[in-house]
């Protein structure tokens, strides 16, 4: 399923959702989780999805990952319809999902040893070493995940996703389980990693500040059914560090987004 190996012959058109709707059908009735989602993400963009819980953020991300198929419309990546999960789209889960029976090194090389991404031993070694260093886990190569903190596990997950060179990174509240301090640190690390290895990112979060800090555009979603309420661009140049969080420019955008999110939250509560 190497639909979109990045090579010169391939025109990168990013990821496009057109008229995406998703209705879960269950014994207790149907839930319309998404309706009429239109979104065009350019290569290299960092898009955050924010909104009250239950507004379909995870559903949209899972459709992009290929775990779910929309009941209406379609999502394409570089013009190709998504037919299932594949190594062109890396996923980072909130629960880390680092393989506990493998060491850090073995986790990162996991994807490279699969038939679809097969590389030579030498190449694997180089790639693995590069990404372990990039996420700052040198000296931890031979450690099992149980010995790592939450933040370190998530670094392993990021390195593992990066190793197979996906075009797109899908992250569902990746720092949601971390304490505030670690979270802040991970945000900055992610910016640095992306500085060196640019990817298109779709990032789900509860934190408006986190979304503003990381994104080129923030997509605010509304509930029942899940729709796009507003898309707010964050025109602050990269590389960004924690210092920008106190600039008036940053605060202005953050407050603007917070206002819309609060409105949506209120609407959901009043129902």
């Amino acid at each position, binding site marked *: 399923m190497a639909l979109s190996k990045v090579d010169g012959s391939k025109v990168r058109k990013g990821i496009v959702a057109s008229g995406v709707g998703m209705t879960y059908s269950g014994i207790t009735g149907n839930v319309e989780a998404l309706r009429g989602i239109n979104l065009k993400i350019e290569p290299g963009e960092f898009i955050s999805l924010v909104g009250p819980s239950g507004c379909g953020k995870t559903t949209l991300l899972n459709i992009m990952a290929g775990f779910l198929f929309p009941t209406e419309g379609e999502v394409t990546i570089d013009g190709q319809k998504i037919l299932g999960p*594949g*190594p062109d789209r890396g996923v980072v889960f909130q629960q880390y*999902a680092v393989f506990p029976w493998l060491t850090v090194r073995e986790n990162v090389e996991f994807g490279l040893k*699969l038939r679809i991404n097969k590389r030579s031993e030498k190449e694997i070694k180089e790639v693995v070493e590069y990404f372990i260093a990039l996420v700052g886990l040198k000296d931890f190569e031979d450690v099992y995940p149980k010995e790592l903190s939450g933040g370190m596990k998530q670094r392993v997950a990021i390195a593992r*996703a990066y190793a197979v060179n996906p075009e797109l990174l899908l992250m569902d509240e990746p720092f949601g389980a971390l304490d505030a301090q670690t979270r802040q640190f991970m945000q900055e690390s992610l910016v640095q990693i992306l500085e060196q290895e640019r990817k298109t990112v779709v990032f789900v979060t509860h934190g408006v500040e986190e979304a503003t800090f990381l994104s080129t555009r923030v997509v605010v979603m509304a509930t029942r059914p899940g729709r796009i309420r507003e898309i707010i661009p964050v025109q602050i140049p990269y590389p960004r560090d924690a210092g920008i969080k106190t600039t008036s420019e940053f605060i202005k955008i953050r407050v603007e987004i917070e206002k819309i999110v609060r409105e949506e939250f209120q609407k959901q509560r009043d129902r």
Partner: protein
Amino acid sequence: MPDTKEEQLFKERFRKKKRRERFEKTGYFILSFLILAFVWELARATNLINPKLFPSIKAVLNAFTVSFKSGSLQLHMYASFLRVLTGFAIGITLAVIFGFLIGWFRILRLFLDPVINFFRALPPIALIPLMIIFFGIGETSKVIVLSYAAFFPALVVIYQALVSLDPIYIRAGKTLGATSLETFRRIILPQLVPHIITACRVSLGVCWATLVAAELIAAQRGIGAMMVDAQNFFQMAPLVLGILLIGAISLLMDSMVRAIEKRATSWQEKMT
């Protein structure tokens, strides 16, 4: 972030503590058996148990040397080992195969769950009379009873483990490009290894527990047969020797499997 000095010190102290604990454990192990031996002899000396009915430690050791020198002990033990290992191998192999099938197909599980629970609750010994009628008093019926003893506990452990696997690892594998076969080999199987070893441990225990009963089916050889012979001729020393041997062997095997288990599960988070 390499270890700080404090961390290194902490680890060193931890290692020392571990070593001391192991040393203490061995000490208590030996001591508890010494106490058992002492109580044994004391009970005989004070006539708490009739010394005519219960042999001395010396007599049991003597029975051991005599039957060892004549070679009959080795023959009995060989016969028992062969039976247990054959029954165990057949039982566990079938348990792995059926465990995967039942764990994989929900329909099969729904159908078979009640039946499996019935047979699991049924003590293997209860099958012996039926097996004698079906297969006679030869090796076949003994091996079938032992396979049966090994099969059900292992089956349950394996398919329960399969059912309770966290699907997130399979998802993670798929996003990296794993095929179904690769998912099975590189994601499902490694998670099941600890459970399969646990299944082996449980099954092996049940097999040994069933052995003597199976050897009561007119066996010529085997530790059980040795004990029946001794009983018929009212020889108390070989009888007690048989009991001790079965206990010792099953303890030894269990600790062997436990050691393997420990290595194979070192990646798992343990509650300590």
